[in-house]
């Protein structure tokens, strides 16, 4: 033991001495930042950024939009988690969005944003994002930056390999991190019967071409591995979807050891086109399943939640030609398809090479039945050498995720050795490497997973920031780092803190998003049943213990602003319509002591806050969004009388001597 300590201390001491001499501690960044970096990320006040980057909010459950190259946070889009700032998941209209088969689940773990694609290119219409914890896929409308739809996925636990989409957004997929018994199997089984009773289920969610509406089309029942990430083929490989799997050992305890035994795990290749055909031929099995489907309607400004009760499944072991496995070095994370659709790059988190598979060779190997055994006696494992185009040698340690630029280069994050490595796709040679600070997970090149990368930048998302920013106690932020990749050498330009833990990002040239922006909702098209289109229509209606307040907001008053006749024990629904028809004039609405949140009502929108007055007295309400010079005057009172009192409903705003 003593010898061991001695052995460790000596090189460590030498290392420290060396750093003292150079005056630069290893690991401190900034050294590779060029003097002109500031100029390259400076976006003058009033000027727009060049690129939108959408980053998952990780355990915040949201998505954040940043401007690149400045790194400015533009908006946090609420998706799976309640957001008190704007009442998402608190207002009556948005509560149904967070409904699941497990009830109201107001949090999730969002990992992989995915931009909708047309002909393999980002089209800027929708952004999909997975809820990892309670399996869900959300669709964000990029003309309003609002979550329009959330679909729960049955039969899986941990929707991790999700929601990657096919070349024309025909489908987005979701697959399980934790295999488990299918929902209808009840599942009260010994955990050590894992191999027998546990399954994976790849969900193919159909996306309507026009509206983006999602529908769970079918699920493929696959072996109980852990499925990590996915990417669809493109061009020649259009019909295929590739998934990485770890824990092919099928362990169910201490996976750190028990799932890291085999030298190779797999890339699972699924011929989704074939699966689609089989379903069309009626080969699917109708299986009971309970899952919520929540849709937000832009005209009623409210969401509905429907509980579905059936899914179609295909047991892939019964349909040859549907699924093949390509052996892949240890615990693969990313699986990424080159812009030409020909190379499939997989990254083993615990491996020291990056295998690059060839789509052509895969087809060849399938043709020639170059198998290396089967899984579950039916699913062919293709010979590693037969499908391999080559390996990127000594790339670093812990390759995680690869994206591509427009000049034939690939960029891979190295989690363990904290660096980004640039290599050439055709000859697999390493061109450049740059340190990242620290432990980078995913990276994003605008269009870097599409047919037409935009190149120019790579954004790397780091798990640890340690000494990068002013410390904030034990909890430090996560960060993103921006590299200029327009030249031969990568150049670090900027790093900036991010919300949650950004897992993955999708980046897109700004003009594809800007042109579709909605500036306000047309009041005339508002069909919310509680909408009022003018102050003359405002009213307060009692029906038993339920009181509905039809209220309007405009600069700079709420109408009505004096409401009496509310009683302790009532259920009061305040429906506020924002009458403004002007860009960037939302109004807020908050009540003293209300047990939920506030509302933030967009111009032309109607939103409802439910309030349970529990004690008598005068209760003020007010606008929370500084809307005009008279914002502070935008307020009013409820009078709450004791239960059983006979104070009649009365409401007023008085006579406005200015507008009359």
């Amino acid at each position, binding site marked *: 033991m003593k010898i061991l300590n001695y052995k460790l201390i000596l090189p460590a001491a030498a290392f420290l001495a060396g750093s003292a001499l150079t005056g630069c501690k290893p690991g401190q960044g900034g050294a590779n930042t060029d003097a002109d970096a500031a100029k390259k990320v400076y976006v003058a006040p009033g000027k727009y950024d060049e690129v939108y980057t959408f980053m998952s909010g990780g355990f915040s459950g949201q998505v954040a939009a940043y401007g690149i190259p400045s790194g400015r946070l533009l908006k946090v889009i609420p998706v799976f988690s309640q957001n008190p700032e704007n009442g998402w998941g608190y207002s009556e209209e948005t509560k149904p969005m967070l409904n699941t088969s497990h009830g109201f689940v107001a949090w999730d773990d969002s990992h992989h944003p995915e931009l909708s694609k047309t002909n393999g290119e980002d089209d800027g219409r929708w952004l999909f994002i997975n809820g990892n914890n309670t399996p869900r896929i959300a669709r964000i409308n990029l003309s309003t930056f609002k979550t329009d739809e959330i679909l729960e996925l049955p039969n899986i636990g941990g929707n991790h390999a999700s929601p990657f989409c096919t070349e024309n957004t025909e489908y987005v997929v979701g697959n399980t991190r934790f295999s488990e018994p299918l929902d209808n199997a009840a599942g009260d089984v010994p955990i050590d019967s894992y191999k027998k009773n546990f399954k994976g289920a790849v969900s193919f969610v159909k996306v309507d071409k026009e509206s983006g509406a999602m529908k769970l089309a079918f699920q493929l029942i696959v072996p109980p591995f852990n499925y990590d990430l996915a990417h669809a083929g493109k061009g020649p490989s259009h019909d295929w979807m590739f998934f990485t799997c770890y824990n092919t050992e099928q362990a169910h305890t201490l996976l750190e050891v028990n799932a890291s035994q085999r030298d190779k795990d797999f890339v699972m290749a699924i011929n989704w086109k074939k699966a689609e055909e089989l379903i069309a031929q009626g080969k699917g099995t109708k299986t009971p399943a309970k899952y919520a489907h929540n849709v937000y309607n832009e005209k009623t400004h409210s969401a509905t939640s429907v509980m579905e009760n059936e899914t179609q499944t295909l047991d892939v072991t019964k349909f040859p030609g549907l699924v093949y496995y390509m052996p892949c070095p240890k615990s693969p994370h990313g699986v990424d398809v080159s812009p030409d659709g020909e190379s499939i790059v997989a990254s083993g988190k615990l491996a020291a090479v990056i295998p690059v598979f060839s789509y052509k060779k895969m087809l060849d190997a399938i043709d020639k039945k170059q198998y290396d055994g089967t899984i579950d006696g039916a699913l062919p494992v293709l010979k590693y050498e037969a499908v391999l185009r080559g390996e990127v040698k000594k790339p670093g340690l812990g390759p995680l995720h690869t994206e591509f630029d427009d000049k034939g280069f690939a960029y891979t994050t190295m989690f363990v050795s904290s660096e980004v490595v640039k290599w050439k796709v055709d000859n697999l040679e390493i061109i450049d490497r740059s340190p990242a600070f620290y432990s980078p997970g995913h990276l994003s090149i605008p269009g870097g997973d599409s047919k037409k990368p935009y190149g120019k930048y790579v954004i790397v998302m780091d798990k640890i920031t340690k000494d990068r920013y002013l410390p904030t106690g034990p909890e430090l932020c996560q960060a993103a780092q921006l590299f200029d990749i327009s030249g031969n050498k990568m150049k670090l330009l900027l790093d900036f803190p991010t919300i949650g833990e950004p897992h993955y990002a999708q980046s897109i040239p700004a003009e594809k998003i800007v042109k579709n922006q909605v500036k306000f909702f047309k009041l005339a098209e508002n069909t919310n049943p509680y909408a009022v289109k003018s102050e003359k229509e405002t009213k307060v209606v009692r029906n038993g213990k339920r009181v509905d307040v039809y209220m309007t907001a405009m600069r700079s008053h709420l109408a009505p602003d004096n409401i009496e006749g509310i009683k302790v024990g009532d259920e009061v629904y305040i429906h506020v319509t924002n009458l*403004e*028809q*002007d*860009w960037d004039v939302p109004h807020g609405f908050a009540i003293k002591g209300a047990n939920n949140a506030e509302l933030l009502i967009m111009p032309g929108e109607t939103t409802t806050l439910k309030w349970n007055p529990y004690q008598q007295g005068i209760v003020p309400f007010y606008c929370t969004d500084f809307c005009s*010079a008279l914002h502070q005057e935008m307020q009013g009172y409820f009078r709450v009388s004791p239960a059983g009192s006979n104070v009649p409903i009365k409401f007023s705003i008085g006579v406005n*001597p*200015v*507008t009359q």
Partner: protein
Amino acid sequence: MKTFTRTLIFISCLLMLTAYFLPLWHIGLEAPQYPEGLEMKIWLNGLTGNIDQINGLNHYIGMKFISVDDFKEFKILPYVFGALTFVGLLAAVLKSRRLLIVWFAGLCLFAIVGFGDFYMWEYNYGHKLNPHAAIKVEGMNYQPPLFGYKQLLNFTAGSLPDTGGLLVGLGGVLVAIAIFYPPRRSSNHTK
């Protein structure tokens, strides 16, 4: 009356008729928080543009709400202007120099009365402010300019002819040319 003169009259009449399809005048408002600007377009028979937003802003200073229904002018103007244009056409058809002069005088009168009326409305809107208004600035009036630009608190108000107004103006110039150029030399060819 020379063919040249008659052609001018016809072109002028056509230009005048655009007043029925194109806005005559516009008032634009710009402020730091309205980088996209607000505007009000005045047509022969009504108003368009960001009237609601402008009314919304005007209520802070107690300006009367702008409403098309308050302007009797918009009910009469299309007829008056139509009648005038008809006089022009008649002058060309009847080759009447007298009618041509009547028409020109009519147009001039129309312009004078029109701008006078416009000024009076602006004056009233800008000066007769509601005493209950939220913002009161000592000695301030909010009368927009008749022509050109003026600073009104945080807004720069611009008042300029719009497409229709420009074409009608051009029509007026053509009428003037028809009368005064070339000078009387051609009188021996007229009746």
